[in-house]
């Protein structure tokens, strides 16, 4: 009898699939799925992607790096420290609660308690309710990036997350390890409502029928996200038609996806710079500016982009990519082997020297291959490199210990602004302020001074000048070895209209996706 019931059930399931074929289902294969449904538990790409599907920020980036009103309809600067946001009316959360200024303040305050996000909120004084649909956001000092930060202010449903859960614990709490209410429950204003979540297996969402954005062209009714870790399997799933969209596409498969008549390969410029840092405290040869310049001249990063990245990355000579405020056009890659050798001679290292080098092998696209190529290139100017590559789970501990003379690090600016690179990678390491957290051994007080000055400069023209000056100093100093800005590589079926959906932040706005 039980068998019969199961048979009927399975038949029913098969048939229900056939009936729902008219609806627009989007199947997505990514390399990982969000670790939680709590948008404030982890500051990572995956969690921010989810936030853009299930929640809405006050403002968001458009693909051409402008601010687009979302839950805030407009904003104005009241004084040096205050920005007033006017909120959208008539917006409902998934739970049915109405969105008001209270939710914005509540979410802002909760964010300040999250280990991951509190660093971002450091410049802020707080969020103040003016009336039901107006808030003032204040900073401690004049802060140039207030709007950039507003892209992180996702509104959570304050009523929904208030009270105690089944275990008698407050629903508001943020827990990295352990059962919290927000881990498995979400109520946002976003285009999708989570219907099923099995971590590392599947995340299913359905279109929010009461979505406030009536202008959104999006027509996806069901959105199924499967994490597919193995590169070959992810590409195979796309080629076989089992999924409609994948990210990332590994470089070795660019051609395959491109050649397939049913598929598109879409490349979007990303802001993540890949660099090697040279530790001047560990190796005294690297403290010599001429030696560092020689190294930068010896590394053919344009060649690496061409050969290893298959041409789908942008060779770099500075930290921030084009479009960022600090971008200086005159700074270009400077591969020149003869000059590199001459510089080594000038520095008195004609016979070369030995260095240790470390890089991860599963963190950035082709990271280990880039490191191997670099080791060879440095060999040509007499620098003997002892290279060690390892999985990221082990690499970060080594990085924290500054365990090698030359170490790889990639960085994407959280604020989409040039200053952020210097704050984390180039400012002198300072345990108290947290500046230079990922700087292994470059220190120039002038860079520190300029970076701090740029933070509170609200005159954008002056600010651009400061940021460009920083890039110039780092370039002349050969403060780091620049490689390239990684591109985001997406593979998608041709019937997906990705216009306005993809952006350099790698937050695909699937709410606006049209399946033709």
């Amino acid at each position: 009898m039980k068998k019969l019931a199961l048979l009927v059930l399975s038949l029913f399931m098969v048939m229900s699939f056939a009936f729902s074929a008219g609806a627009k289902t989007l199947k997505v294969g990514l390399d990982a799925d969000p670790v939680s449904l709590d948008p404030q538990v982890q500051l990572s790409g995956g969690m921010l992607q989810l936030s853009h599907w299930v929640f809405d920020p006050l403002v968001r980036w458009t693909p051409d790096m402008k601010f687009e009103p979302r839950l805030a309809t407009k904003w104005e600067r009241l004084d040096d420290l205050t920005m007033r946001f006017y909120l959208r009316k008539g917006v409902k959360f998934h739970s049915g609660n109405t969105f008001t200024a209270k939710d914005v303040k509540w979410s802002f305050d909760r964010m300040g308690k999250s280990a991951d996000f509190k660093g971002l909120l450091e410049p802020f004084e707080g969020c103040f309710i003016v009336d039901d649909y107006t808030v003032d956001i204040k900073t401690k000092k004049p802060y140039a990036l207030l709007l950039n930060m507003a892209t992180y202010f996702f509104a959570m449903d304050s009523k929904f997350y208030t009270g105690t859960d089944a275990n008698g614990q407050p629903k508001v709490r943020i827990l990295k390890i352990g059962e919290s209410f927000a881990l498995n429950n979400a109520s946002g204003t976003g285009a999708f409502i989570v219907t099923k979540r099995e971590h590392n297996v599947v995340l299913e969402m359905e279109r929010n029928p009461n979505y406030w954005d009536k202008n959104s062209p999006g027509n996806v009714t069901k959105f199924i996200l499967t994490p597919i870790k193995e590169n070959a399997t992810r590409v195979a799933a796309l080629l076989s038609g089992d999924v409609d969209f994948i990210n990332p596409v590994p470089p070795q498969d660019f051609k395959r996806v491109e050649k397939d008549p049913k598929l598109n390969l879409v490349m979007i410029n990303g802001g993540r710079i890949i660099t090697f840092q040279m530790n001047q405290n560990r190796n005294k040869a690297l403290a010599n500016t001429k030696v560092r310049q020689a190294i930068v001249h010896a590394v053919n990063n344009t060649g690496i982009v061409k050969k290893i990245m298959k041409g789908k990355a942008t060779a770099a000579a500075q930290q921030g990519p084009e479009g960022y405020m600090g971008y200086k056009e005159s700074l270009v890659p400077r591969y020149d082997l003869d000059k590199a050798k001459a510089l080594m001679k000038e520095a008195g290292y004609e016979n070369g020297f030995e260095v240790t080098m470390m890089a991860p092998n599963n963190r950035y696209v082709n990271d280990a291959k880039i490191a191997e190529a670099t080791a060879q290139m440095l060999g040509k100017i007499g620098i003997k490199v002892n290279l060690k590559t390892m999985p990221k789970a082990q690499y970060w501990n080594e990085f924290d210990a500054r365990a090698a003379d030359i170490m790889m690090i990639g960085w994407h600016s959280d604020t989409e602004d040039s200053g952020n690179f210097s704050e984390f990678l180039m400012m002198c390491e300072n345990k108290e302020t947290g500046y230079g957290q990922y700087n292994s051994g470059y220190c120039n007080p002038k860079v520190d001074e300029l970076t701090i000055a740029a933070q509170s400069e609200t005159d954008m023209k002056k600010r651009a000048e400061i940021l460009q000056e920083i890039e110039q100093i780092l370039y002349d100093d050969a403060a780091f070895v620049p490689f390239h800005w990684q591109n985001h590589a997406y593979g998608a079926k041709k019937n997906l209209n990705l216009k306005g959906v993809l952006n350099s932040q790698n937050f695909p706005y699937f709410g606006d996706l049209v399946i033709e």
Partner: protein
Amino acid sequence: MFAFIARRIIQAILVMLVISLVGFSIKDQIGDPVRDLVGERVTPAERAEIAEKMGLNDPFFTQYYRFVKNAVTKGDLGRSFLYNKPNLEVILHHAPATIELVFGTALIIIVISLPLGVYCALRPRTFLSRFTMSFSTLGVSMPVYLTAILLIFLFAIHWQVLPSYGRGDTIDLFGLGWWSTGLLTIDGLRHLILPCVSLSTLMLPLFIRLIRSEMMEVLETEYIKYAWAKGLSPARVWMVHAFKNTLLPVITVFGVQIGIMFAFTLLTELVFQWPGMGFMFLEAVHRADISLLIAYLVVVACLFVVVNTVVDILYGFINPTVRITGTK
């Protein structure tokens, strides 16, 4: 007898302690789990605070004692960092997928290797026999990973007849919440085919060869000759007299190999994004989920120790000499 059983159980407990100790001592080599839980801009101070809360900074034996105490008194093997659920629940949740994969593979092996092995023994000189034998060498020498990719390329991409990854539709069995089965839906069965076939390529040649050689050996024995002399029909000689005796060693090997097969699902599960225990294990290694790794090690060890202990004790009942040597 009682002393024998008691000693066996004490030995089993000792083994468990040693295994968990070994698991604990390698855990710092895997990597830092806190790194995987936080974004890159979280300060070292914050990370240290999280590690402190997770109890990762405690001395080795404090951590070990806590683990053993919780395991023994509450049956609690800790909480997975990656899945954010109790480890036992995570392992239990992933077990059915692997069991079904191994079950399907075993089925394929039995259905194909038995008739082929017997045929090759009875008609060693035919084309089919020679073809089978040379083809099986190829099967043994090809890594599962490659076979799997090749199968995906042919059946999922080129002909597009079978799905490329995952388990497809599953049904929650008995309403338990953790045993989800793909055996009862058409979609689930379709998803099983490629992983099972690629996993079976590893063992299938072995069994064909084993059955063939065992059968050939049996056919040479005296009692088979006697049976022929008695004038029995070929079907009776082959199937009743020869085949039955062939099966004895084959079944023994099969039992051992099924156990080994659980270990080999690792690569197959990775390639097919099959959410079983092998996949879970690899994820835990990659993401430095040391808590889950130790729990998995302990659960697997526990299974082996319990089975072995029970077998030993049963042996003691069946064969008293075991017991006697045990008490000397």
